[in-house]
């Protein structure tokens, strides 16, 4: 960017948000070159400026400035994304939501709240807990990630087995659209007449609009909660217990699994009481009516024992329950005790394919000589193999990436998909071609171009590198001219 243009851009941005909230020096900007994704992606690309607006109107005006300069816009929440979604891979203006953290309205009877996008996920549930409500999507990163990031990634979390992913909990959104307009889509009722642009925006990873407010559904806290820990001699027996629980008609609030490597790391850090001699533990949370929870607790314990559980323990106090959960939620962090780096895969298989998928993870670990820890959402079939490595050892990163690709290919062959919850971003965009044809992608490109004809919103994300959204447009023009086209 020419120096003069750059100065003019920075002046215009400062006029909107105030000079203090425009970051443009290389040192300050280096922070915004990273999210929580792999080193192969993060750290390389720098935006021209990172802007921290305080209101929706400021976001709109920042977008307008960027558009006037023909620059891309990259929204960013807390930067905990694992797929490189909040990286400015074509430069441009990064809009950082960390100052927009207010809870604007809470309506108990109508069961919704309106919040700003930078609000930390857990802060919402904490703020409304005394009223007897919570926000159901709970990524393991919920102490750090933002609601706007959750919306953009359609994030999951342990409780999504029963409560569904983020899209099930978003009623409406205020967004700045790629033409620079600020508008609401959706609303406080469960059904939007005729079209569901809210649903299309959720999970679109900042490529269709910048979320400036979210109307989120609040869930009533359950009457009763039970947390059980079951330990197993093999991963396979634990996986079979998972299938048996579901097949019995029980839908736990969550069903999480951790393997021996994870248990060792977690126990060393937090002493949660996970048995060190187990090959796998299942953390099962049941919630709902008193009577139902009591019924299901018995049944889950019985089914775990039937599938060779060595031990089944039920946490009796809230403190005990929290301790069991602490181990799960902090598990990724504790793996730093075992290796300097990890590469986290996020793939998903039909639940009954878990045993074979886990066996394959073991195979990959041996073939590539990489230690792999598993801590994941077993009830959803959403695997998170964490490959441990040291990036300063020659060839390590390459080996780990190859192992990750092999795993992904296996899971897709098993009827699974590319990403269960972390998103596509830059990291996985080329893998989209493994599950979608050009026709599938062309339809998605139709959605993208309907929102963003100039392709300035978080460009170079989600779509495979070789696939051009513009190419789809040519196809459409042919359709317009001839009435039909030959594929």
């Amino acid at each position: 960017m020419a120096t003069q243009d750059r100065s003019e851009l920075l002046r215009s941005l400062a006029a909107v948000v105030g000079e203090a909230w425009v970051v443009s020096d290389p040192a300050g900007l280096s922070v915004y070159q990273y999210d929580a994704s792999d080193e192969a992606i993060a750290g390389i690309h720098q935006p021209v400026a990172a802007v921290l607006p305080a209101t929706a109107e400021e976001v709109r005006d920042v977008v307008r400035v960027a558009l006037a300069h023909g620059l891309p816009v990259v929204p960013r929440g807390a930067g905990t994304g694992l797929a490189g979604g909040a990286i400015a891979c074509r430069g441009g203006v990064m809009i950082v939501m960390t100052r927009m953290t207010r809870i604007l309205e809470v309506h108990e009877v109508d069961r919704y709240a309106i919040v700003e996008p930078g609000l930390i996920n857990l802060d919402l549930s904490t703020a409304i807990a005394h009223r007897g409500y919570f926000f159901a999507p709970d990524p393991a990163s919920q102490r750090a990630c933002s609601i706007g990031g959750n919306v953009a990634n359609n994030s999951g979390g342990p409780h999504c087995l029963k409560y569904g992913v983020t899209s099930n909990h978003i009623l409406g959104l205020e967004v700045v659209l790629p033409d620079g307009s600020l508008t609401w889509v959706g609303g406080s009722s469960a059904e939007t007449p005729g079209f569901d642009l809210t649903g299309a925006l959720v999970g679109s990873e900042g490529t269709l609009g910048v979320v400036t407010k979210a109307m989120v559904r609040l869930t009533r806290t359950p009457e009763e909660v039970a947390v059980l820990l079951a330990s197993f001699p093999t991963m396979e027996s634990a996986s079979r217990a998972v299938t048996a629980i579901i097949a019995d008609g029980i839908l736990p609030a969550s069903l999480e699994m951790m393997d021996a490597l994870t248990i060792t790391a977690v126990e060393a850090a937090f002493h949660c009481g996970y048995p060190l001699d187990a090959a796998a533990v299942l953390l099962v949370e049941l919630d709902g009516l008193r009577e139902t929870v009591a019924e299901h607790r018995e049944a889950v314990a019985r089914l775990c024992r039937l599938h060779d559980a060595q031990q089944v323990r039920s946490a009796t106090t809230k403190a005990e329950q929290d301790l069991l959960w602490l181990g799960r939620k902090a598990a990724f962090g504790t793996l730093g005790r075992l290796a300097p780096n990890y590469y986290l895969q996020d793939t998903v298989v039909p639940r009954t394919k878990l045993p074979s998928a886990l066996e394959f993870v073991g195979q990959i670990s041996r073939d590539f000589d990489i230690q792999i820890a598993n801590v994941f959402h077993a009830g959803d079939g959403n695997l998170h193999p964490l490959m441990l490595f040291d990036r300063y050892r020659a060839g390590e990163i390459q080996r780990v990436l190859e192992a990750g690709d092999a795993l992904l290919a296996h899971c897709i062959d098993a009827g699974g998909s590319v990403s269960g919850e972390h998103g596509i971003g830059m990291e996985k965009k080329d893998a989209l071609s493994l599950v979608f044809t050009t026709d599938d992608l062309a339809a998605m490109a139709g959605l993208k171009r309907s929102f963003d004809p100039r392709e300035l919103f978080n460009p170079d994300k989600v779509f495979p590198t070789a696939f051009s959204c513009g190419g789809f447009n040519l196809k459409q023009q042919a359709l317009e001219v001839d009435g039909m086209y030959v594929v």
Partner: protein
Amino acid sequence: MSSEVEQVPIVVDGDEITDVRFPESQQELAETLRSLQRDGAHALIVGGGTRPAFGNLGGPFEFAISTGKLNRILQYEPDNMTMAVEPGCTILQIREALAANRQSIALDAAHDSRSTIGGAYATGMSGPRRLGGGSLKDWVIGVEVMGPDGVNAKAGGMVVKNVTGFDMMHLHYGALGAFGVVTRLNLKVFPAPTASRSIQLTYDSAEDAHAAAVALLTSQLLPASIVVSNVPSGWQTSVRCDAPAEAIDLLVQRMMDVAARAVAPNATDLTEDGNNALSTFRAVADLATDGAVARLPIRASLQPAALPRLADAGWAVCADVGSGLVYARRPSIESIKDAGIDAFASATWLSLPPHLKADCDVFGPTPEAVQPILRRLKDSFDPKRRLNRGRFALGL
């Protein structure tokens, strides 16, 4: 094939379509669509034909394409809680297949032996059981849609959690076939409740019936649906309870206690069949060809004032309390402006006589900023307006 599938002709807003095509495979459907392009024709998509009049005045249509014979269950994996179906599967067909494995979907379609899953998805409407079970859009994990060029495009997959690519499942939900013919739906299904009951509580005033409903809604007792409606004897709060068989009696008792503590009812009626709670809802929300049915987004907290006002203006009303929606029905209506209530400004008209449809967008107002996006979407997916033309929002 059942005779119901071949109900011809189809009448929409007074127009009769006698040429109805019944493709039996995806290839046949693709060929039919290509012929549409070739001949420069326009087609109406029909599922079971229970609500063909929903939508704006559209057409004219040279022929209709029925999905009635695209009605196979393609894949059902009970242990994965997933099912893939063709669009012409009826709600009943799906319910029966699921029941064999003690699973269910909480769809309340009125004519379930005719209503198709494709039609339910395209109209984007769920009944009051969405309170306990979520709505159809929450359970669709994958979709395939065929464009007017005869090309199928898929999104999502057969796994319950998936963020691979854009969420086209939501884009086509409620789109009334504006962007293509839905050819496959992948569903996430749930364990069926082992017991269901209905409680009907009768009150003198809408405020009391509503207060009881809100007491239940804000309790931790998880009703599967709560509906408040005006009945000849006053106002009624109908509640559906789902629970394990061992717990149902106790739960019903606890629910009645909560409601009675808020406001004691004049009368209580209890039935073994959980679905009874829906009958009043259906009576209001069901299609009236000669009258008007509106869906009004009125939040639960605002309903106590709105309900009696609607009733005083001559509407049969029914509030799906948990979802913040009110359905209002009147056998005849002269003009929308005379409907009598401000709330109608934001109504979706589920049914309206054709001459009144001509004066309004039945989907209600569309925010200005969104209008160009909807137009570009239609241009992108169906540039020549071959499918269901004119029937979607903005007359697209």
